[in-house]
């Protein structure tokens, strides 16, 4: 039944990409040696025009970010009078970051919203990861009635755009009075993000679990281990990379989300994540780029750091069908 849901990219493709993304270096060199020199020469696009074009593209892709980054370290007056490419002549400052973190121009301090994003994202990654790993294990390795039908149903639900569930969910949380629970509307966000994430999480983790050789599990069973022990002692250590790759997806998705936050937090903006405050000040602060640029980079810093350090897990998940909207 697992073959009913193959990953979109062949496994060999996925392996190459994981190595590319900085996987095991010894593996990489081994592979490079294995390739014939003729193959390498044949593949490489040798035209100088190709290099020039690639460099132009790389520049075009990075310049916008660099521009705003440089701007975030410039004085307010300099930003308004000269372009950021003149920054070396006009000097740098950290005042913008101090300003947004402490709250400048009547804006609330950004540290509060950084904490909000953090408080929202951790449980919203943890809950779907825990629930989905259990469900994926059962779908992959326990025989029970309606297993195939249920799995296909869960898989198919990936296609439901979250827009279609959003408004009734908001109302359900209001009816429940979530606002007055300890933790308040964080619960709305934790639970909503988890619900939207579960179909993809079950699908991804199931694909990874199914790849584990059945003999390993049978050996454990012969030793008298129950499903709970097998889950903990055999499977969890083996699917750690899969957990990491879904974890990064969900982390980036929740941290960067705007729609769910805006709809769920209508009545309690004091719990807003960074994206929401960024969206608001991009309207209210309009042209005050000295604050906007610093605020933008505070919101970008953590996901970019996570992304760079765990890139290979992200690529692996991407190639196993991990795309979500």
């Amino acid at each position, binding site marked *: 039944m697992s073959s009913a849901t193959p990953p979109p*990219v062949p496994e060999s493709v996925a392996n*190459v990409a994981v190595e*590319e*993304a*900085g996987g095991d270096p010894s593996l990489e060199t081994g592979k490079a040696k294995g390739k014939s020199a003729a*193959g390498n020469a*044949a*593949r490489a*696009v040798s*035209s100088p025009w190709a*290099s020039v074009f690639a460099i132009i*593209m*790389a520049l075009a*892709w*990075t310049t916008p*970010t660099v*521009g705003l980054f440089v701007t975030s370290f410039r004085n307010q007056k300099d*930003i308004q009078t000269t*372009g950021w*490419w003149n920054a070396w002549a006009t000097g740098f400052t950290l005042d913008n970051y101090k300003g947004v973190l402490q709250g400048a121009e009547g804006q*609330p301090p950004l540290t*509060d919203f950084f904490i909000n994003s953090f*408080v929202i994202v951790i*449980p919203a990654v943890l809950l779907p990861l825990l629930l989905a790993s*259990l469900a994926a*294990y*059962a779908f992959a390795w326990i*025989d*029970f009635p309606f297993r195939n039908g249920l799995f296909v149903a*869960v898989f198919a639900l990936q296609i*439901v*755009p979250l*827009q*279609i569930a*959003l408004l*009734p*969910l908001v*109302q*359900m949380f209001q009816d429940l009075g979530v606002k007055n629970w*300890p933790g308040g509307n*964080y619960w709305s966000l*934790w639970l909503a993000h988890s*619900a939207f994430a579960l179909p993809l999480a*079950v699908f991804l983790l199931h694909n990874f679990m199914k790849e584990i050789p059945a003999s390993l599990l049978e050996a454990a069973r012969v030793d008298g281990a*129950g499903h709970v022990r097998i889950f903990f002692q055999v499977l969890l250590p083996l699917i750690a990379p899969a957990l990491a790759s879904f974890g990064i997806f969900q982390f980036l998705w929740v941290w960067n989300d*705007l729609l769910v936050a*805006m*709809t769920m937090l209508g009545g309690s*903006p004091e719990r807003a994540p960074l*994206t929401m405050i960024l969206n608001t000040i*991009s309207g209210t602060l309009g042209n005050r780029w000295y604050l906007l*640029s610093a605020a933008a980079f505070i919101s970008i810093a953590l*996901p970019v750091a*996570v*992304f760079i350090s765990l*890139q290979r897990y992200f*690529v692996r998940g*991407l190639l196993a069908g991990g*795309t979500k*909207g």
Partner: protein
Amino acid sequence: MYALSIAAASSDNVSKLLALLMGIAVFAAVFIGILLIASLFKGHLGEKIQAAAFVGPTILFIAIGLIYPAILTIRRAFYDGKFFDLSFGNARSRGKFVGFENFQALWTTPGLPGVFGNTLAWVILVPLVATSVGLIYAILVDRAKGEAVAKALIFLPMAISMVGATLIWKFVYYFVGDPTANQVGLINATLAKLGMSPIDFLGNAPLNTFSMIVIMIWIQAGFAMTVLSAAIKAIPDEIIEAANMDGVKSFQMFRFITLPSIRASVIVVLTTIAIATLKAFDIVQASSGGKLGDSVLANEFYTRSFVTQQPGLGAAIAIVIFVLVMPIIIFNVIQMRKDA
């Protein structure tokens, strides 16, 4: 709205962290509870109970958090009701049954037909351009020196939120209205240097739609490049070498060897980006809020549902998004099966 809550927000950062700990504790307790229940049972019947304990919470969660609300939304699309009432689940406050009026309103409401036009431009241009650019780049840097770094540069925008990306590009597009002042946005400053007059890229339709489409392409090209690069590397060396011996030129190589070999991946990338584009509302929201003739369906869903208090119309738009996404995904799944 935000100004009112500043004082409250800064005082309770400690309680927020306590909320975080509580959330983690509750979720961990649920997880451990499930495992404890499951480990109590042994034997053949025990296996069924264990399966239920493992799968049940997820199924229940999805049923309550996804399926039930989706059904409510579909029902909502056939009712009127001007206000975002808190308890529309009751027949009393749901308004009256209006048949397909909300769907008719999609065409008759002023501004909405234009929204469909804008959405069409997004859904056609973003996947096509992002995939082409990603593919070209993947081929150009394949086996080149510094390939990993070159790829990371294009890949990085994927980690940035769409709101952040919009801010980054707003500054690139920045337009200073005062003709005597210096243009400090990169593009307008360049135009000024070349002796041309500056352009308000995000201020006027239809140019603003295309300016924002560029932002989405900037975000999505990295995804296309990663997947397609992996596909290119999976083409067996023997095929390339054989073609090389036959004296195949670079472009022919691309046209007759590379492209057919990675066809399946190209389709996955195109459709995935199309779906992401159809659902993305953040860019329009962070740029103008869709007020400058540049709205798209996903943004209109938010506006109608939560701002202008037309939940019936909002529900109809959500259903349209769902219906538009569905064939793309079905096509995708069929393709996946064919190639697997």
